[in-house]
């Protein structure tokens, strides 16, 4: 489905004006349509990579993105920017009309980007470790952040390797992974993997065995004491 010829012929200022007007009195039919000024504005931003259209979209929908992110997070401007960066980064330029047949599809995707940006920030706050692939949004441009994430990643790989070498069998690997990398309690491990772990006592025994062994390990102790932790 393509935008209507009428909206395609509009100059950018008129299009922005019409999109604003449409947004203030938008109907359900317009949200379900692809012949509207707002749809055309998104199409120009993505397919034609028009900076003016993109700039107008940012200003027009910034407050919607803020609403979707929710009010309770600090640095909300950074999250809004991340949301738009995700939208831009992953929007399919070649198959825009196919992927987004109506304005509803576009706005649904923008909303998903807003939620994803919020999840990303919450994740970073609840977990100090950050993989290289997760350095995104505004942080992308900070060399310091990228270097820190890379060093962090190396330290993390060292720790993983140290631990992996101290585990005796597949069950210990699984308990280690599920307990610490996924964060499941022994009861949750039994609930999710009843075949491998039918009894919760068994999980606790394995965990205790692993922790005692790791605590005695000199290399691991040296790793913790080196300040990498």
């Amino acid at each position, binding site marked *: 489905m393509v935008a209507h010829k009428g909206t395609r012929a509009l*100059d*950018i*200022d008129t299009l*922005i004006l019409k999109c*604003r007007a449409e*947004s*203030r*009195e*938008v109907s*359900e039919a317009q*949200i379900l349509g692809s012949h509207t000024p707002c749809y055309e504005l998104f199409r120009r931003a993505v397919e034609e990579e028009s900076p*003016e259209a993109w*700039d107008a979209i940012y*200003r*027009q*929908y910034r*407050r*919607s993105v803020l*609403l*979707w992110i929710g009010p309770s997070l600090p640095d909300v401007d950074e999250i809004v920017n991340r949301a738009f960066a*995700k939208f831009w*980064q*992953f929007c*399919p330029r070649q198959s825009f009309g196919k992927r987004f047949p109506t304005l509803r599809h576009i*706005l*649904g*995707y923008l*909303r*998903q980007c*807003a*939620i*994803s940006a919020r*999840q*990303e920030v919450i*994740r970073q706050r*609840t*977990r*100090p*470790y950050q993989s290289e*692939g*997760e350095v995104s949004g505004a942080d992308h441009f900070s060399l310091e952040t990228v270097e820190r994430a890379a060093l962090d990643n190396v330290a*993390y790989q060292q*720790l*993983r390797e140290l631990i992996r070498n101290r585990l005796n069998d597949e069950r210990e690997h699984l308990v280690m992974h599920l307990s*610490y*990398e*996924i*964060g499941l*309690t*022994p009861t949750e491990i039994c609930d999710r993997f009843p075949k491998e772990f039918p009894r919760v006592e068994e999980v*606790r*025994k394995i*965990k*205790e*065995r692993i*922790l*005692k062994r*790791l*605590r005695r390990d000199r290399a691991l102790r040296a790793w913790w004491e080196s300040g990498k*932790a």
Partner: protein
Amino acid sequence: MTMKCIAPEEIKEGDLMNYVEGTASQSVREHISRCPACAAQAEALAQMDRALRRRLFRSTCPSSDTLLGYVTGTLLPDERKYVARHLKECPHCAGEVEELKQAGVTSVSLLRQQIMRTARAIVEAVAVPPRPELALALRGKPYRLTLFSAGDLSIALGSEISGPGPVFRLRGRVMEDGVPAFHIAGNPVRLTRQSKVVDRKQVDGLGYFVFDRVSPGEYGLVLEHVDSDVMIKNIRLSSEWGRTR
């Protein structure tokens, strides 16, 4: 010297872990309160448990971008398989994926309400007869200008030939209720021509903005302001406009 448990028969493998997790029985708790060796060992296990948790929690989870790609169907088949496998064991990522899925299927009526609630307005400024003192309000030589009005805001806009060609200097001052709008310092102003932005400036601390070396032609101007933008259309810069309009 290593301490020894005071009553090894009272405690079995797994009990210390139970204690660390706060799920130990009354008898185990009593034993640990009496036994310095077991208390020290439980504390050491708790420290290791906290350290590993802090360091490893969600370290193998796919990134937020990957989960977004999973939900929107843009991952490669191998990546998709990996994420699907991970979701079976990870309630955190499964929760995030569910939230992303829900976000993509918002009802049309809710979406409509949200868009209307957050829409920015754009107000077209209209030309009004200038007051005599406005000529003095602009910096530099007095010259003819046009006053535009949009709600409480007014923009005094004037031009002069600033170089051969000719090229123009287009100056403006923003006022609110007749006084300089100091609080909009820093707000962007865009000069557009044939639907393209040709220059961007910001309003200065006294409410002024200046576009220099502007070629003759017909322009539009957009001032960003709180929840609405103010647009001036059909600004014609010609040698005639500069002298006589």
